[in-house]
């Protein structure tokens, strides 16, 4: 069965510092991968997604992620973190990929705290 692991439950970074959130997936074929952000009291918002092609994908709010098949990873990065980036971040994989079930399998999330 497909699964997603986010090894870091909680990360604290200083404002202006770089950020990398880790995500590992389990799937035999090329996965469809997503990163979502959830601010307190808000629904989830899509940051970026990967289906195929260029392994470095750009998203909204200055985020990017890199797909590495050899490491089964899809880590999220941002060069300079802003205080408003404090939130919970979820990595997800699309079940069945190209079969287009629409079903997302989420990791357990990483809470990002930003120090002034």
């Amino acid at each position, binding site marked *: 069965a497909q699964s997603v692991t986010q090894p870091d439950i909680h990360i604290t970074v200083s404002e202006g510092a770089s950020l990398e959130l880790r995500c590992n997936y389990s799937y035999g074929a090329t996965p469809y991968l997503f990163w979502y952000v959830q601010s307190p009291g808000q629904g*989830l918002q899509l940051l970026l997604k990967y289906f195929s092609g260029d392994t470095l994908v750009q998203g909204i709010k200055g985020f990017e992620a890199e797909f590495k098949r050899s490491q089964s990873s899809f880590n999220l990065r941002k060069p300079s973190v802003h205080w408003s980036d404090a939130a919970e971040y979820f990595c997800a994989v699309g079940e069945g990929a190209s079969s287009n079930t629409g079903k997302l399998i*989420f990791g*357990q999330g990483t809470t990002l705290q930003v120090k002034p």
Partner: protein
Amino acid sequence: EAGVAQSPRYKIIEKRQSVAFWCNPISGHATLYWYQQILGQGPKLLIQFQNNGVVDDSQLPKDRFSAERLKGVDSTLKIQPAKLEDSAVYLCASSLDREFYNEQFFGPGTRLTVL
């Protein structure tokens, strides 16, 4: 464009009581999802509708949970009777259709506390 609307935002009930949540998806979206997000975990899909038909309810505890999507627009999720372990945020999402290329838009959720 209006987003996905959910109500109520918060609900506190005692175990064995019943509760219902309502979701109004984005206009024109054929696919509607209900997720359960337990504290400290990622969202888990409970049920997926395509128009007014159920596509996937494999993770819905059918002995106590039920859901419907009247006329392929609004949807309600009901729990009867509630258990302590049902305490969670219930998220509704919608998308144009099931293809992963179409973004799922999430509502703000309903936070349920079962005492």
